């Protein structure tokens, strides 16, 4: 006897949303507040930072002192439920290429642990002038009103700078630099590199007209998620408020299998597996909105084949899965002898960066298109696993308190003192840059492999090209110049043998582009409102619609575009088009 059956509900929702991250959360927020009856499916458990955050724990409260595990890739206190590999949910790669896919299975998705660095894409990011990368079907001016509304709704700190391709927002005051960052700022200036206050979605002041969120109290632990909702997570700032309208129902632990369509090819709902009872369910909606993450949304579409959509839903163009691109990323670190024996004070600051360097060379002709920004950090941070590892590489390089050089390494009271002397002297810098969206970097359905739910999995094909490697070299050269001007001692730089420290595709977790928008239905899956060309009641609101990412982190643009799509849906409903 089999007890497996497909359970169908009779409720017809105005919209069914798959995924609760930045894109799905914003769509749910706008639609539920407008009075639509919305159902959201989330593949992981319910997560409320107020209850589930590990904020304010000390290192000794973790038996591994905050070290990472297979289930907490960014450390024992980090908020993400998920990681680079999920038990029973594999993905594969093709032709020896590499792609690392980070998935958070939880309400709010990856917005619970992200770095809160909230940058707008600029005019040249939407309409590039480099002659190499593809233009979007929209301009900065199309998106600006939504960036403005996102700033007001969610809150962001920063400074008005008037830079050409780094548009200003509506800012709360930024946190001042830490001591290490003042040295970085000074060194960068001497090296000809602009540094400005960071831009982050953290409430350095109370958000006007918002009684549900608290102001930041500067613990620097945004990656653990915030118990007072002082930073942006989709869970705390969008989904939970949307639930309070009474118009949003969330089903947690619901792993979407495919988008259901009717004979005419229109979307009718979602089929999913409930991870709690392992039963199959179908839910119905007048509109289906995918916000499952760039790669997961592409996977859903490619797995939703029907006679009306033989190549997968919204894929008559064949572009779904293609043009996958992550930001480039490379880093360097060093330490400042000037910061040895420094005075102690609470320097936790905020959980995002305090200063950064927006791309400072504009449209200058280089051997790679456009550029990158640099994120900086350092300070008197909470000790954790790996605290001052490798001190033998440092303590032989500078004189002791007695003015005499000594042998590197050591033990005993003298070593114990060295740890005290070196604490807080280190810093790091990381470049994040434009990677070119290429047709040949893609995800597709692996013809042979399924996950534990029987859902065909993704297979990735991704290779960096000369442009990205040259950009990483430029980053390393810049890092060395800045560190030299700072009077710092640099850790050994990454050279050509590691592609200048260029991280594997996916590692920066800015993957976008797999369901690109465009005006031409033969070359794109979605129109400029993220509506499928082939299926007008289907929308995608995560980072999949991105045509070409700039060096800016994707989240603020996901939020703005999802809000724009949700408002478009409301306008179209009034016109009875969907």
């Amino acid at each position, binding site marked *: 006897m089999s007890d497996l059956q497909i359970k169908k509900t009779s409720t017809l929702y105005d919209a069914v949303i798959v995924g609760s991250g930045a894109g799905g959360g914003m769509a749910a927020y706008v639609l539920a507040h407008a009075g639509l009856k919305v159902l959201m499916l989330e593949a992981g*458990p319910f997560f409320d930072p*107020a209850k589930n*955050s*590990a904020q*304010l*724990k*000390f290192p*000794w409260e973790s*038996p*591994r*002192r905050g*070290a990472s595990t297979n*289930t907490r890739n960014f450390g024992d206190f980090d908020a993400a*439920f998920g990681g680079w590999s999920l038990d029973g949910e594999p993905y594969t790669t093709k032709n020896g290429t590499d792609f690392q896919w980070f998935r958070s299975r939880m309400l709010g998705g990856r917005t619970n642990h992200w770095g809160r660095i909230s940058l707008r894409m600029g005019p040249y990011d939407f309409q590039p002038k480099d002659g190499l990368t593809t233009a979007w079907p929209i301009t900065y001016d199309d998106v600006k009103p939504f960036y403005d509304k996102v700033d007001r709704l969610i809150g962001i700190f920063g400074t008005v700078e008037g830079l050409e391709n780094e548009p200003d927002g509506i800012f709360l005051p930024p946190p*001042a*630099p830490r*001591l290490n960052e*003042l*040295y970085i700022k000074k060194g960068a200036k001497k090296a000809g590199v602009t540094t400005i206050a960071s831009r982050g979605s953290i409430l350095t002041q*109370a958000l006007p007209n918002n*009684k549900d*969120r*608290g102001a*930041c*109290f*500067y613990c*620097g632990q945004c990656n*653990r998620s915030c*118990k*007072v909702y*002082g930073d942006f997570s989709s869970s705390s700032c969008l989904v939970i408020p949307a639930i309070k309208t009474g118009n949003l129902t969330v089903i947690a632990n619901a792993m979407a299998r495919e988008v259901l369509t009717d004979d005419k090819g229109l979307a009718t709902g979602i089929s999913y597996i409930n991870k709690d009872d392992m039963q199959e369910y179908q839910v119905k909606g007048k509109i289906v909105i995918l916000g499952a993450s760039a790669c997961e949304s592409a996977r859903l579409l490619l797995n939703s084949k029907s006679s009306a959509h033989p190549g997968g839903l919204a894929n008559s163009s064949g572009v779904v899965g293609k043009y996958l691109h992550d930001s480039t990323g490379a880093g360097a670190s060093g330490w400042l002898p000037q910061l040895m024996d*420094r*005075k*102690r*004070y*609470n*320097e*936790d*600051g905020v959980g995002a960066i305090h200063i950064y360097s927006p791309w400072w060379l504009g449209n200058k002709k280089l051997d790679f298109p456009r550029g990158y920004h640099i994120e900086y950090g350092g300070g*008197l941070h*909470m*000790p*954790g*696993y*790996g*605290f*001052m*590892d*490798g*001190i*033998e590489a440092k303590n*032989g390089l500078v004189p002791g308190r007695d003015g005499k050089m000594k*042998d*590197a*390494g050591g*033990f*005993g009271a003298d070593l*114990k003192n060295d*740890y*005290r002397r070196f604490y807080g002297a280190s810093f790091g810098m990381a470049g994040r840059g434009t990677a070119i969206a290429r047709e040949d970097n893609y995800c597709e359905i692996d013809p042979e492999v399924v996950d534990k739910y029987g859902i065909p999995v993704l297979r990735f094909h991704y290779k960096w090209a000369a442009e990205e490697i040259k950009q990483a070299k430029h980053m390393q050269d810049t890092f060395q110049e800045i560190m030299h001007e700072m009077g710092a001692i640099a850790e050994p730089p990454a050279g050509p043998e590691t592609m200048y420290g260029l991280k594997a595709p996916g590692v920066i977790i800015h993957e976008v582009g797999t369901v690109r928008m465009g005006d031409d239905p033969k070359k794109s899956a979605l129109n400029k409102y993220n509506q499928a060309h082939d299926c007008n009641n289907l929308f995608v609101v995560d980072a999949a619609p991105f045509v070409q990412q700039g060096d800016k982190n994707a989240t603020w643009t996901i939020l703005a575009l999802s809000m724009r799509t949700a408002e478009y849906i409301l306008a179209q409903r009034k016109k009875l088009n969907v």
Partner: protein
Amino acid sequence: MNRRESLRTLAIGAAATGLLLDASCKPGTQKITEAAPPKEGAPDPSRLPNEIARDKKLSEEKFFTDHELATITVLVDIIIPKDEKSGSASDAKVPEFIEFIVNDMPEHQTPLRGGLRWLDVQCLNRYNTTFREASNQQQIDMVTLIAYPKKAKPEMAQGVAFFSRMRDLTATGFFTSEMGVKDIGYVGNSPTIWTGVPADVLKAHGFDSVWG
């Protein structure tokens, strides 16, 4: 919600996890102090059930023999001894941390077990005794041969690698303990208002303002 209200919210939320907040202080001076521990058996809401189960299992596993753990205890106290400011590594329960971490991170197991045996064989050849049972002076002499990577003889290279690993694990174990955090002078993880680097520090480092 302003900062004071948000701290009050935090205090209410935190009461369940054993934290209390004195919301009557002025902003910037609030102190969070340990109160009663969470109710026995109440699961940590920030952990997934499989993580809680795994941590419990790991904490019950024992990798090292009594001799190995005793040797580790001697070593970590040589690396971080008691001084006028704080206690020793074993006072901060570093051996217990190392026992846990080798179960959590099996990649440490063979280098540590093999390194301990390497050390014992060195001492047996030199002093006709294991490292643990050697005299304090003999232990220090032995450690001196492997504690300075640039100065150590090539035939000591395996010992150097072992000792560097021990030094790293000892530093982590000590400075992430309550005693070690106090020693190193980390004073964060408590609500405050960050207004930039303090004026006296700015001055000492030659900066004119909090923005440099």
